[in-house]
């Protein structure tokens, strides 16, 4: 499966944020999206998730050589500021989510299994989500996105608010998930990107470009990225 973006562009007032982006993502890989503050990473994700109308361009999925347009359920999006319905408890949110996706999820397990999997402790499961900490909300958002098994998973600066242990677990989890899907992951932490991602993509001056890692050691690679961004 491939996720193809063609001629995607977006501007605010006079400022061109995305200029005619052409890029192809391939399944089974984690892409690390790096870019300066204000480069347009969040804007790109918002356009891909159709939260924001792009000025022009298309994106589609190519499966077995057949192109088809992207449906809403193909995309999972974890925002940098976690957003969960505050009036539900963690358990209720999960139940609601699974109810909705009943026919799509293959092996539905007990709710507690999922909580165990993501590491939310027993006493927190029946608390209102408004009383969850930033990191816990982030986990919940991640969890439902993982359960839905979208073909493309967009993660906008996750892991930044997670504690070291959870961040490590989450990395493991993402590695386990990447089979058969595309994970695009924006971050400012270069070491995280280098450690976790199979490909590094830079968003710079409104275009996406892949950074070739071949026969460079990690220090040289870092310098290459830095000089490309500067």
């Amino acid at each position, binding site marked *: 499966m491939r996720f193809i973006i063609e001629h995607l562009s977006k501007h605010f007032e006079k400022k061109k944020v995305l200029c005619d982006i052409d890029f192809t993502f391939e399944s089974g890989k984690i892409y690390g999206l790096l870019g300066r503050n204000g480069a347009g990473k969040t804007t790109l994700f918002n356009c891909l998730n159709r939260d924001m109308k792009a000025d022009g361009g298309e994106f589609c999925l190519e499966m077995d050589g057949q192109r088809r347009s992207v449906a809403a359920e193909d995309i999972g999006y974890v925002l940098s500021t976690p957003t969960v319905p505050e009036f539900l408890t963690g358990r*209720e949110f999960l139940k609601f989510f699974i109810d909705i996706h009943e026919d799509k999820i293959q092996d539905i397990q007990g709710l507690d299994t999922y909580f165990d999997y993501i590491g939310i402790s027993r006493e927190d499961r029946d608390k209102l989500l408004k009383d969850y900490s930033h990191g816990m909300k982030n986990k919940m958002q991640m969890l439902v996105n993982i359960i839905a098994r979208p073909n493309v998973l967009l993660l906008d600066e996750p892991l930044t608010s997670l504690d070291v242990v959870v961040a490590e677990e989450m990395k493991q989890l993402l590695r386990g998930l990447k089979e058969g899907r595309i994970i695009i992951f924006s971050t400012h932490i270069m070491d995280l990107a280098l450690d976790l991602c199979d490909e590094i993509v830079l968003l710079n001056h409104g275009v996406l470009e892949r950074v070739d890692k071949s026969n460079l050691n990690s220090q040289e690679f870092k310098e290459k990225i830095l000089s490309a961004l500067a």
Partner: protein
Amino acid sequence: MNKTFKIAFSLKNTYRVNTILYSLKQIPLIKRILPQELYCDPDLKIFANILSGIWEFIKAFLGKFLYFLLMITLEVSLYRTEAQSAVFLHIFVLLTLIGAWLNTYIFNPTKDKYYGLILLGMDAKEYALTTYAYEMLKILAGYLIFGLLFGRMHGLAVWQCLMLPFAAAGVKMTVVAYSLWDYERTKVAVNENEVGVIGWILIALALAAAYGLPVTGWEIPERASVCVLACWILLGALSVRKIWRFQEYREVYRQILTRHMVQMDEARQSVKRQSEKVIQIDGEVGSSRKGFEYLNEIFIRRHQKILWKSSKRIAGICLGIVCIVVMGIHFLPEWKEIVNHFVLRNLPYFVFIMYFVNRGTGFTNVLFMNCDHSLLTYSFYKRPECILRLFKIRLREIMKVNLLPAAVIGAGLALLLYLSGGTKEPLDYVVLVISILCISMFFSVHYLTIYYLLQPYNAGTEIKSGTYRVVVTGTYFVCYGVMRMDVPTLVFGMGTVVFCVAYCMIACVLVYKLAPKTFRLRA
């Protein structure tokens, strides 16, 4: 000095110009015409500058004119005493005293001060003195003109009228000088907008004295008022020195402005917190429902208070009013005809009443703040069939919430009609009840529809859509217009039923066609 004033003035002007441009951008039709590079278009800038200038002028003169007219002259002429000049001075003295406390200019934290002093680091003392001098000049000019005009109208001597502007400026400066002196002592600068409970009580007392005492036939004797004015002029003259000599404007502003900015931030956050606060924790009753019905049931249960409380309260009040009228009819037979006539002729009034009784905007507001705001970021939630499923469920809920008061009003009217002598046309009863229910349904559908079609909130939960504002305001005026129609109940009732049913059908079709595209988060 001159330069500081120029910068300060142009800063204030720029801020205002940008506010004007921003507001222009919010108006749906005008938005289209406006060029993209709004903030640097020279023609528009000039236009906005002119508006800004006019605004400054209006504030200086029209404001004072209205003040004299509405706050003083109007009241003085109400009292019809011989001593008009004394009453005029009485009210003027007390109001000016309040104004001096509430409007010091120096201690008013405004955005342009924040930009100039904190962000641009302008010289605080020069800034304070020049802008303050400008404000005082505006006061002198405004009070001079209108003081003379209105003062002469009420029989003040010219020399008395001439005292007014200087006394007003004097007392303002006295308050400022006192505050500065107080700051030197305590090192705490008091924001003029933080009045406190005692302050408000004093203000209320002063207001009561200003307008209440003349009713009882007592006012400050004219001589005494003139003495007070003279004192203020004197004190003002002395205060100039203090204001001029004071050295710590920088610290004063820093205190007021940073505290103010923190408060503004908190206010912004508290909107979010406020909407979270309305979530009630319940006794964890499980639910047998699934999917969206499950979501809806929990939502309604956790927001019981905010959704149902006012609806129940309104129903209770309406019930009370009906009871009172029923008793009135019983004991005072002459009410009968009035009530009968009212019910049979004035159904249009109830459109307006139903408009106020309706909880539609409150409902959509909570829906967005506590539910859609977050769930709209999930892709499944945006699938057309899900949006429509939930729309149906919500329509049902909002109708239920609004139905309670509507049922009470409808049944109450029918009852009153019956008790007040009834009608020749039995159909009137039916039409009365059904049309009230239809109006209620109409508002429910209306608010939910415009919410789904315009989705006015942005992720920061502010209302961003100008169109939405226009539609909501338009709704008000239409209802107001309808109220003034003079049509018999039967005709009007039939008309509303037809209109409401047609509207609801059209609205639902529109939502089904368009909502999957329009029901999105706004960037």
